[in-house]
């Protein structure tokens, strides 16, 4: 399992994504990625993960196509003339209301706009069509009853299971980089605890954001928005994941990791989520949230917070900025309408500057790794090309500030992190290997592999 084989598929597939985007011109695809906030570094997951991404594009694209087929027609007339039309529509109200007595319990606006849809349909065709449109809408009404066989899928979406998987893999990267002999039980407990904590945090986040999620395109199909689960159940699920998760980390691993996990949940749910709507500082808080899992992995292995943990956290922290800023560049309309305070909307210049700054910081941090005895000196050398490339794209984004440069930077960040962590892992300075500083990458990798197997 050479690293070279791993390097090529992600790059080729990333190229495939860009090609696909250009061909399909689907704007919705990048939205999915905000779910995939942290990338797998695990060798086994990386390749399958990109295949999985490819599949997700197709399903997302098809889903959006079918969504467009719904009779959710944009008002043909400009909103300037909206008010004048309302009088005409009120007359239509009386004609159609005998069909549906239930609708009287709705608020006035919803009945009005449903009838506006019908009116526009009636304009073009005869009155048979509105009845047809009615029954189609009737079918879209769903009973709010929890079905047990749907529950696993619902809970998976509630806990953002894919994002959780990525968080767990960054934590396991932290664990793997710690300069201690590998312990399987500790590793599994730490991963499980981190996963549970992440599930809890994501569920609470969705619980808080129901009306906002329903107004944004990429989040409008979440379980709480669709009423597939009650808020009470969401909170109970979060509690039943969070409490055992943190307990597992505190008792099964060590108290420091448990404390970090609890702090991260708090930071994400009580700081980041409300801050998203109050100030642009949320991006920095969110970057810290993303940086903590590898630190947790490290402390799970070593039991202490040393420079290596902070460096790893620093790398994740810096990575968040080009990743998120590039992504948010294309979502400005949704953020503005939804009331989210993001740099890309309010301080676009700062947004691009920060992204570039942190791309360059990644180079600096990679160079600091051998200084702190975490990796050999081959690491900054090997990682320089990819770090320079992402910095170049960051610079292009800074200069051009357009959609294509933001997309390029975003897609680069997706394969950049797994590659960086992978290279870091292969250049890891094992405890027994401290003398072999000048080794060739291949040989040190093989030896590292031998030593690392339990």
């Amino acid at each position, binding site marked *: 399992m050479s690293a070279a084989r791993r390097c090529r598929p992600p790059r080729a597939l990333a190229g495939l994504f860009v090609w696909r985007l250009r061909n399909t011109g689907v704007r919705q695809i990048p939205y999915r990625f905000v779910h995939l906030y942290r990338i797998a570094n695990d060798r086994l997951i990386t390749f399958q993960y990109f295949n999985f991404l490819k599949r997700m594009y197709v399903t997302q694209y098809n889903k959006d196509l079918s969504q467009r087929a719904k009779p959710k027609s944009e008002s043909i007339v400009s909103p300037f003339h*909206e008010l004048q039309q309302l009088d005409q529509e009120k007359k239509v109200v009386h004609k159609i209301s005998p069909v549906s007595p239930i609708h009287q319990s709705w608020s006035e606006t919803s009945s009005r706009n449903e009838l506006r849809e019908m009116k526009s349909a009636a304009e073009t065709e005869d009155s048979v069509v509105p009845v047809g449109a009615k029954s189609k809408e009737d079918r*879209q009404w769903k009973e709010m009853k929890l079905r047990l066989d749907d529950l696993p899928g619902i809970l998976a979406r509630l806990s953002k299971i894919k994002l959780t998987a990525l968080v767990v893999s960054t934590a396991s990267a932290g664990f793997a980089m710690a300069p201690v002999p590998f312990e399987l039980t500790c590793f599994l407990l730490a991963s499980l605890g981190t996963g549970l904590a992440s599930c809890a945090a994501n569920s609470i986040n969705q619980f808080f954001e129901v009306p906002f999620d329903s107004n944004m395109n990429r989040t409008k199909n979440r379980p709480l928005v669709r009423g597939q689960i009650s808020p009470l159940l969401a909170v109970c699920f979060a509690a039943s994941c969070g409490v055992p998760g943190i307990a597992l980390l505190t008792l099964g691993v060590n108290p420091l990791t448990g404390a970090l996990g609890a702090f991260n949940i708090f930071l994400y749910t009580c700081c980041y989520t409300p801050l998203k709507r109050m100030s642009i500082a949320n991006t920095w808080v969110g970057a810290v949230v993303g940086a903590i899992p590898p630190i947790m992995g490290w402390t799970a292995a070593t039991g202490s917070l040393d420079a290596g943990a902070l460096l790893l956290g620093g790398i994740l922290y810096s990575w968040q900025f080009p990743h998120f800023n590039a992504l948010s560049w294309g979502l400005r309309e949704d953020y503005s309408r939804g009331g989210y305070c993001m740099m890309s909307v309010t301080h676009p210049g700062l947004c691009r500057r920060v992204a570039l700054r942190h791309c360059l910081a990644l180079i600096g941090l990679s160079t600091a790794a051998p200084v702190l005895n975490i990796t050999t000196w081959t690491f900054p050398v090997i990682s320089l090309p990819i770090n320079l490339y992402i910095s170049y794209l960051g610079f292009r984004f800074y200069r051009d*500030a357009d959609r294509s440069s933001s997309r390029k930077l975003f897609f680069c960040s997706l394969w950049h992190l797994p590659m960086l962590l992978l290279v870091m892992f292969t250049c890891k300075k094992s405890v027994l290997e401290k003398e072999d500083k000048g080794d060739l990458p291949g040989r040190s990798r093989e030896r590292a592999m031998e030593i690392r197997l339990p």
Partner: protein
Amino acid sequence: PPAHSHSDWIGPPDKHSNLRPIIFYVPPEESALERRLREARQEAQASNQRFWAQHNRAFRQEKEEFIYSRLKAKGLEMRDESGQKATLNAEEMADFYKDFLSKNFKKHLQYNRDWYKRNFRITFLMGQVALVRALRWLRRRKKNVEQ
């Protein structure tokens, strides 16, 4: 929703507010607690609907006005020769988005506070109702066992 149903029904997203309306089931022997819960949910739904419908409508309207004024400044019409609606690119719209966000900032802060309070209250009431129902069910089972 059919008349014989004993549960709430949720519908497709509203055209203006993008929120899904819920029709609440009123059981014949509804307790005071359950009634409070249902009324809180109805009130929250109505308030959310009002806010978002008005907000989204304002957004669409102001966006149209902005596009119109910018196109006018450039000397273009709303629709070009082929009849397609003329649009501005993302960079030009960015000014509008920034403006709109800052204009509505206070409104959003107020709404957030409101929404969080309502959400917590509704969830807490749901918890109470669930607890009462569970106790009632246990009591009934105990009675059945004793008989």
